[in-house]
């Protein structure tokens, strides 16, 4: 496996941004929803806020993988386009498995 190249500095910034936004947004949604649930159990919006927070949280690493595919395509690093695409396909496999076992979706 090749070590980092200077191109990876841009990937580093992209990953940083995706993680910060994902953690920040999901944290705010989960906190608002949880406070809402504890303060006013009958308030329907709190459940929606927490569900949105969980979806943003679960989507954060997936977004990072998708962004890596784009970045490696820009770099024309086809080996890593292929490897990260396999990872994305495996996560899509989890979504399919979720649909098979679904009770909520």
């Amino acid at each position, binding site marked *: *496996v*090749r*070590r*980092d190249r200077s191109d*990876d500095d841009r*990937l*580093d*910034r992209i*990953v*940083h941004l995706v*993680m*910060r936004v*994902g*953690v920040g947004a*999901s*944290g705010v949604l*989960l*906190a608002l*929803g*949880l406070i809402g*649930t*504890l303060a006013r*159990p009958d308030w329907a919006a709190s*459940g929606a806020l*927490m*569900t949105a*927070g*969980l979806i943003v*949280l*679960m*989507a*954060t*690493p*997936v977004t*990072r*993988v998708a962004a*890596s595919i784009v970045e490696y395509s820009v770099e024309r690093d086809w080996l*890593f386009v292929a*490897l*990260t695409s*396999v*990872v994305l396909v*495996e*996560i899509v*496999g*989890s*979504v399919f*498995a*979720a*649909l*098979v*076992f*679904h*009770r*909520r*979706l």
Partner: protein
Amino acid sequence: MAVTPALTLWILAAGVVAGTFGATLGLGGGIFLVPFLHLALGLPITVAAAISLTTVIATSSSVTAARTGHRLINFRLGMTLEVATAAGSLAGGITAQLLSETTIRRLFAAFLAIVAVMMLRARNQQASFVAGNISSLLGIGGGVLKVPVLNAWCDVPLRAAAATSAFMIGVTASGGAIIYYGNGQIVPALAAAAVLGVQAGSWLGLRFGGHASNTALKLVMAAVMLIVAVVMTASGRP
């Protein structure tokens, strides 16, 4: 399952404690959170694992955000190994839906005992697929397996191994969490409490807890894990 404010606050507090210990020992905290949610609060082990996996995603993402910019994460190595961990995570998530609660509880107990022994001894070597599989199945990050693998097999320095492991774990945990979510095993209020608690606890652990080389703390935690492993094996809870 009745989601009461008391249960939610207990999970928040458990998250803080698990996050603090986890960050102090250089682990995510899932290994403490799952047994507590299951044995002390009586949640089914799949629900405990599902809740724990959501905290693993949050911990991985915030650690990754903090470690970027320091050239500590080896992206190419991490993404290569993710091919195996994501496959393991998918397999583990599916397996968790098919195995009985008792079987999963016994697997978790066995895993706890192994980790306790690993904490007492030097290091161990496992494959990435196994790390991903165990992660989804048991609701933990798997860093406890990945860090020694990266360090020993892939010749990555320990600090970089920890950063790269944390980076990979988010994808592994997401793959598993999506399956649990689809099956309705992630209760939003409980997961929210656990995520926020673990995030706060990790922050506390990193601020005030010092670092992983605390031998006395490791000894205590290894002893606690061995006791929990025995209780989990013996417990008749469905």
